[in-house]
């Protein structure tokens, strides 16, 4: 099955100059953990994930300790998030990770697993965002 048959035709997205607090608001309202980032032409230029934002807000030594259980509370993370809130999405977004309309399901599943993504944007020949594929879209297809 190709991406065009699997994808949700949902173009919910942000732009590189969207502020972080606006992106978090959109994630909350739309119930999404990943947002595609598009330019003025609607072309995909990156993605921003909850995971990226959480990591950016964690203390730098988290990478060594792999846990936040030693923190007395979440105040430090909250302080960092408030500093990030008015910075643009472009400061925290990932490189362009996408699949094409005609990519096959096996390639897409492999991509999601290797990149540890919950969803991946789908683009057309010109690079316009045309939809997204979530892990659950593939799983639900496979159990039918």
């Amino acid at each position, binding site marked *: 099955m190709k991406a065009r048959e699997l994808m949700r035709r949902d173009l919910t997205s942000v732009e590189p100059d969207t502020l972080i607090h606006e992106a978090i*608001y959109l994630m909350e309202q739309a119930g999404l953990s990943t947002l595609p980032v598009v330019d003025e032409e*609607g072309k995909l230029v990156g993605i921003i994930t909850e995971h990226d934002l959480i990591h950016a807000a964690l203390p730098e030594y988290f990478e060594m300790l792999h846990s936040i259980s030693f923190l007395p509370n979440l105040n430090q993370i909250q302080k960092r998030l408030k500093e990030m809130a008015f910075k643009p999405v472009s400061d925290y977004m990932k490189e362009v990770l996408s699949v094409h309309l005609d990519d096959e399901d096996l390639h897409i599943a492999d991509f999601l697993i290797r990149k540890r993504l919950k969803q991946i944007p789908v683009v057309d020949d010109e690079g316009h965002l045309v939809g997204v594929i979530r892990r659950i879209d593939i799983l639900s297809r496979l159990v039918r």
Partner: protein
Amino acid sequence: MILTVTLNPTLDKFYWVDHLPLSLERVEEEILIRARKSVSSAGGKGINVSVFLACMGVETVAMGFLAGHTGQIILRDLLERGVTANFVWIEGENRTNITILEKGKEYHPVKIHEEGPRIPTHAQELFLKKYRRMLKRAEYVVLAGAIPPGIPETIYKDLAREAKAAGVKVVVHAGRRPLWEAVKTGPFFVKPDVREELVVGDMPVRTEEEIVAAGKKAVEYGCQACLISHHITGDILITPEGIWEYEAEIPLTKFKNLVGADDALVGGVLYRLTKGDDLLEAVKFGMAAALASAEVEPKLCLAPAVIEHEMRTVEVRRKEDR
């Protein structure tokens, strides 16, 4: 691609009842009405047009504002029907519009329409950004339906101007001031919504003569076509080339659900125009789509063969040359 704008989306909820006791003459503690059947679906004029087009295989993108749990249900329904969704999310809750259809009197439904959430200024700015982006990929834009609180009544005029400047053909399917302001920009096709008040602009449209006068005024502003309902099964098309009357002899008792019929009409016209039909034939198909939709319980008839068959019932007469 056909872009549709629905600024005030709704979750349409339909109840079919055997009897609707609306009289309060008797002293009763409460009136209990048991629904024989109920159905919900994403709605709003533009959304209905998009659903119709997507089911006919036409690429369409629906835009507007979504909010809350109701917004999630609307989005899910749209995505399942193959509509591409590009909405701005806001706080609050989208409206729910209720229609109660009584057995044998389906042509005379009882409706309860909510107002919808207030749209904040920053959300309107976000919408405009997205709208301008999508215009670059659109052939037609459909500006349709009610204006939610917080948005000025001149919004369709502004959106129509932007679309015309981008070389996109504009279709306006709305009522009252929002429609007439947009008419002044000279859109391609206008379908006035006269359900609440038989008025287009400040002109009454109760008689054939009044309908023709209102349509001619729209044409003077630069509209290529203005289609105004004369009665449930009759429309009058006014264009710079002439005036045509579309009529179908169908008893009212044949209608099962009139909600969405007008939207099927607009969807039908656009579907046929994208297939290369001329306007007169496209309007005939649109009217057949409206009649076929009114004759089934679901909001829209999405079976091309049924609509084609319905075309036999539609008669077209030239009323007047220009």
